[in-house]
């Protein structure tokens, strides 16, 4: 039996076209973009071409607005610590939504230890940021506000344009973590008023271990990784040309194919949601309409998420994700599920499906049957 992979938010296979495009930079002479000889120049050209492609995906002002990093975690760290520390003379307050990724929350906690004020903005039960609270919390001394463009656990897409207006009216800069959204929905940093934006290569079929931070021209950021001064001095270290060239090509392909692919996945997703919600005591988590086209997330009463994941994997060869405590390193349920108001016992029963290019419409009934069997089987042995 062939497996069905439904955990594209965790990791994706690299697109074969991306691999083919980037392979020469690994197999043949790679060159260091900082070298002035011809081989170095070739690497430099590949680097700049990739920068242009990534800038294109989000409609950045210029390719130089893109700083390549080792991934979304580093990009989030650079955005938060780099911006807050560089602009500390303008204020010492940072703000984030309660459903940010841990790589946004933890750098903010670190800033808090260093004397910054750190406030969380709550979200409603669908995961949308509370605009009234946002307005109240952001003040003149708020140098950086970080709001996720779309959350990877519940799929909710934030009204980022409205959020940007509030942030700029009252505070200074807006950072958006677009890890889950990029390549899935159109992003226009200029039209949306986004000052900094995090991207992850592997989240749109590029190589792992690479990401980027968009920084709007004239926004001042200081490096968190000082050294040889690569990437305009903001990210030292010899560039990983293979991965960066791959990320660029992946961005180009995503930009070209996003429209059709999103429509296709959305049809599958809507069918999955309507069928799975027919199961007794099954509930959608996140927003019913304002959600990523490939994203379907649920919770089931009286059963636990790690058991769901295991049963789906072992019995049905279908890989899903969960926000259950038992699947995490901290043994705490997902802070995102708690932030949308779920009780601990409700958050334990979560299941997240993220579709991708390999998924086919004919898989929908197979997935639905597997979920039904899993829920029934686990409920039969449940003490609840």
């Amino acid at each position, binding site marked *: 039996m062939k497996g069905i992979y439904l955990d594209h938010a965790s990791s994706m296979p690299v697109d074969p076209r991306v691999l083919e495009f980037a392979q020469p930079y690994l197999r043949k002479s790679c060159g260091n973009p900082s070298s002035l000889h011809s081989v170095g120049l070739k690497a430099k050209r590949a680097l700049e071409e990739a920068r242009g492609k990534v800038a294109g995906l989000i409609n950045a002002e210029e390719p130089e607005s893109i700083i390549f990093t080792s991934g979304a975690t580093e990009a989030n760290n650079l955005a938060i610590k780099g911006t807050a520390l560089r602009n500390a003379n303008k204020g010492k307050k940072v703000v984030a939504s309660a459903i940010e990724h841990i790589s946004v929350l933890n750098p903010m906690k670190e800033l808090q230890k260093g004397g910054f004020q750190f406030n969380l903005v709550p979200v409603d039960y669908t995961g949308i940021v509370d605009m009234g609270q946002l307005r109240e919390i952001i003040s003149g001394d708020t140098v950086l506000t970080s709001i996720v463009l779309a959350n990877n656990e519940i799929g909710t897409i934030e009204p980022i344009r409205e959020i940007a207006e509030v942030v700029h009216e009252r505070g200074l800069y807006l950072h958006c973590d677009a890890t889950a959204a990029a390549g899935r929905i159109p992003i226009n940093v200029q039209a949306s008023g986004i000052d900094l934006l995090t991207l992850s290569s592997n989240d749109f079929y590029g190589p792992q271990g690479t990401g980027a931070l968009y920084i709007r021209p004239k926004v001042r950021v200081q490096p968190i990784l000082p050294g040889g001064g690569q990437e305009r001095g903001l990210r030292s270290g010899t560039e990983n040309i293979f991965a960066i060239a791959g990320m660029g090509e992946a961005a180009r392909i995503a930009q070209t194919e996003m429209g059709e692919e999103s429509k296709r996945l959305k049809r599958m997703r809507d069918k999955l949601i309507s069928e799975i919600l027919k199961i007794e005591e099954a509930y959608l988590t996140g927003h019913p309409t304002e959600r990523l086209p490939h994203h379907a997330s649920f919770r089931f009463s009286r059963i*636990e*998420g*790690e058991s769901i*994941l295991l049963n789906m994997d*072992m019995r049905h060869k279908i890989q899903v994700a969960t926000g259950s405590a038992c699947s995490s390193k901290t043994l705490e349920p997902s802070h995102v599920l708690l932030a949308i108001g779920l*009780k601990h016992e409700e958050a334990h029963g979560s299941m997240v499906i993220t579709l991708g290019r390999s998924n086919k419409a004919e898989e929908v009934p197979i997935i639905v049957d597997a979920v039904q069997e899993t829920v029934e089987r686990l409920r039969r042995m*449940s003490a609840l």
Partner: protein
Amino acid sequence: MAQIGYSKKVLDHFMSPRNVGTIQNADGYGKVGNPVCGDLMEMFIKVKDDIITDIKFKTFGCGSAIATSSMVTEMVKGMSIDKAMKVTRNDVADELDGLPPQKMHCSNLAADALHEAIKDYRRRQAKGDQVPTPEVGE
């Protein structure tokens, strides 16, 4: 494929759990854990001449919660209650060829549930009266 560091035995007990269910008119009943923490176990025993003649469980929880429940029932069926009282959490984990370290505490409650059921049986014996089995899923 080894998920989250589970041994083959854990996965086997998760996939084909032994002794799932309830016992009508059980001689002893134990319940441990808390749905808030993500694990809740119920253990039902039948005892004759101080020997556990039948045992069943119901568990809400993760893979290791289900596997440890299943394993403990297999270990103590046919065992004297004195001996069964001495079965520890570690014994259960050992029989399963170990549990991932983070699972040793939270989801390794099966021995506790068994002990509660035995204590319940002894209380009933001491009173000499019939305590009705609590409603399942209470």
